[in-house]
């Protein structure tokens, strides 16, 4: 251990200072002497390297052939098996890889083994000359002076004003990129149409759900009646209207005032669109009665009206009031009482309008 530490700490415990002036520094010994490679001295080694490079280029040729064979020999038709496509993909990959790596490694090997490998030193030139700088500064000053912009503030200020306003049309011209939002986000397809309540139907086939189909512990992915028949904007409506339907033991639900009749016999329906950034809250943990969003793990407790108990969401999932119609099918008695999905600037205003 006798050899250790002369980098002894002095003042701050970690500082090791030594003289900083040039005299005490090690002098740069210059570029290390060039060491010859085997191929520089031994003609046999050089010949061997030459053959290796040629072999690598040859491998590239083989790779190109593999690619062409794989492309033309394997045809994709109506009933091509996935395995065939996979095989072709792998062969195209191997072919290209050989073709490219052969050329690449060949050239690099050539450069490393056979081309001169003397490191050389080149002077750096100054990026600019002092003379140029003086001239440039003078030119800029002259230009500014000749415009007279400093002496004529009226010109300067009106120009600034004009230039500041001129881009506005460039912004305004994008006005037709989309319609005004108005209150489209506040409504969904669940609103009763012509006094007829919408049935809850299965996603994706659209068959109505009877209350008796919903056993305790089960969950249904639900879309409103008539969604599948839409020709335009089907996905837009679906993105707002999807609902999760679950049945719990009625005693474990604790509806707040005003929501007592929003469920039926322990069956409740909640919006499936996360109040965080809008992913579908698709995971239902039957044992704990939790709903979990797989995107950002917001967790909602079904027994507390889908209150947020974990994760980045801030608001509970909106509840859809449901009942049973004369034929025993589940129907929505009204639209959601608040906008569904992620928050937006006007959301609170919309919610107040709905409940007014």
């Amino acid at each position, binding site marked *: 251990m006798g050899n250790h530490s002369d980098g002894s700490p002095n003042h701050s415990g970690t500082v090791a200072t030594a003289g900083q002036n040039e005299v005490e520094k090690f002098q740069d010994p210059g570029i290390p002497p060039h060491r010859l490679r085997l191929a520089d001295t031994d003609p046999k080694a050089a010949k061997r390297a030459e053959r290796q490079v040629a072999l690598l280029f040859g491998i590239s040729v083989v790779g190109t052939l593999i690619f062409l064979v794989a492309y033309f020999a394997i045809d994709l038709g109506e009933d091509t098996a996935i395995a065939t*496509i996979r095989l072709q993909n792998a062969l195209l990959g191997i072919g290209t890889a050989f073709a490219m790596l052969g050329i690449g490694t060949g050239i690099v090997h050539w450069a490393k083994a056979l081309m001169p490998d003397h490191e050389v030193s080149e002077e750096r030139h100054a990026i600019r000359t002092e003379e140029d700088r003086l001239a440039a500064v003078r030119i800029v000053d002259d230009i500014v002076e000749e415009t007279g912009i400093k002496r004529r503030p009226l010109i300067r200020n009106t120009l600034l004003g004009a230039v500041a306003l001129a881009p506005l049309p460039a912004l305004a011209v994008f006005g037709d990129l989309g319609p005004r939002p108005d209150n489209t986000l506040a409504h969904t397809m669940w609103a009763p149409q012509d006094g007829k309540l919408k049935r809850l139907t299965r996603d994706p086939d659209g068959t109505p759900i009877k209350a008796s189909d919903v056993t305790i512990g089960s969950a249904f992915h639900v879309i409103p009646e008539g969604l599948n028949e839409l020709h335009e904007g089907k996905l837009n409506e679906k993105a707002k209207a999807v609902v999760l339907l679950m049945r719990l033991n009625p005693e474990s639900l604790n509806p707040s005032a005003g929501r007592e009749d929003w469920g039926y016999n322990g069956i409740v329906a909640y919006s499936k669109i996360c109040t965080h950034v809008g992913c579908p809250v698709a995971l239902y943990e039957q044992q704990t009665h939790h709903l979990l969003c797989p995107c950002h793990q917001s967790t909602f407790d079904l027994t507390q009206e889908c209150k947020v108990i974990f994760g980045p969401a801030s608001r509970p999932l909106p509840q859809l009031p449901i009942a049973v119609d004369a034929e025993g099918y589940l129907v929505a008695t009204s639209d959601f009482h608040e906008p569904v999905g992620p928050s937006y600037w006007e959301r609170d205003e919309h919610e107040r309008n709905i409940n007014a």
Partner: protein
Amino acid sequence: MSATSTPNAPAFVAKTKGGRITNFVDERVGGSGILREFGRKVFPDHWSFMFGEVALYSFVILLLSGTFLTFFFDPSMAETRYAGSYTPLKNVEMSVAYSSSLDISFDVRGGLFMRQVHHWSALLFVASVSVHMLRVFFTGAFRKPREMNWVVGGVLLILSMAAGFTGYSLPDDLLSGNGLRIIDGVIKSIPVIGTYTSFFLFGGEFPGTAIIGRLYMLHILLVPALILLMIVLHLFMVVVHKHTQYPGPGRNDGNVVGYPLGPVYAAKAGGFFFIVFGVVALMAGFFTINPIWNYGPYDPSPVSAGTQPDWYIGFVDGALRLMPGIIGDWKVEQIWFGHVFTFNVLLPALVPAGIIFTVLFTYPWIERWITKDNREHHVLDRPRNAPTRTAIGMAGFVWYCVMWAAAGSDLIATHFHVSLNDVTYWLRALFFVGPVIAFIVTKRVALALQRKDREIALHGRETGRIVRLPHGEFIEVHAPLDEYKRYKLVGFESPSPLPAEPNAHGVVDKKEKRRAKLSQWFFEDRVAPATPAELAAAHGHHGTHEAVEAGDSQKTLSH
């Protein structure tokens, strides 16, 4: 005009074929000046300089494979029923964009391969840009005169992520659709203009029928054009500045040591393009990336668990996951003056990325202000020789990685059989503590490595050869370094803190005091390079040292 154009002047006759071609070009466009400047231009060589090359080459591969894909891709969101050869999706309702992506995968020979090449090289592009920037940061290559090129690099990083994200969404599959849904949610959280921005972007309500076509235009025209422009600027500045070089014998701020462009450097760099292409092809052939046929067409209702964004968006997604929506009973989303402030989305989506890019863009100026170092630097710092900068970089890197890991919190939980909530709690803690720990640890490690360098410079390297001395003591023989290796360990600067200086009015202002404090923080812990005097002392020391040791052991024996 010139002598060569007069009829009676003897024509220049090149002796070789190459010479004749050069002459032909030169007489028409005058290229010999450029060739003279660049033909033998010296480039320093180091493996870490290749990350930038990888970035450039993967961009070339992106252009090539992307052009192929545009011949077959149709960015329409019109509804269609799938009629291609992939049986599980037969007759399924989907958008034309998704259907044409499936056709590229299953009905165009080599189409799947091209899609895979395109996606893999996109991932590689962003990755190599990022690693290249880390290299530039940790070696101090951003210092004067390269600050502007560092900024261009930062813009390229943002553009590469934009290119990646706009492309990722094009196939209109379930996975990328959910990604867009998240983007929509984030946009809607922007105060005042959020709802309008969302409606303008999507052409109405989410998802609408416009977004894929719009992203397509951005993806194949605007973003790549900007990237190309930035690359031209970037390389132009590299030529103006000449490349930086690692410190070592014979290298200083006034020269460039390396190989001439032609033939060695050009061959190595050119060959490397084919190697990058080959590796991408190998990955494309054997590792499935983005199997859109497994996800199905976009539908707002289903979602698959354990889904991940492409890696470079991960840190934003992770930040979104880490932010609690409710703290105790206090809702992070606030309603002020009848309007919604969605802080639980706004803060994580904008603040971390904002901090990272603000610090990234301004760092060269911050460091220059603190150190008042206005010299040009062409020799790089070894990261250990700039402990505080290295520690700052690692703190940022760890911060990024914590957020990035958070994007996989559910997968961490399922793979290691731990509670998802606990993973989140730990990552929340690491979000704050991680960078601090990283800073302290990195700084200490850098200082320790500097000490080790000193040790080796002064006492040579350990040979592993144990020698028994006549009096019975065992010592390990240290072999002295040759002067070239030693210079590599001692050839660096170790600046000391710069105390506050009075300004032109003779006043030490508050800003200058703050700067002095930061300078103290930056440089107070440091290890100076070994000096010749110390080396001489160390050599002398060995002699006396052995004598002392010998004396000691005699004493021991005399017991």
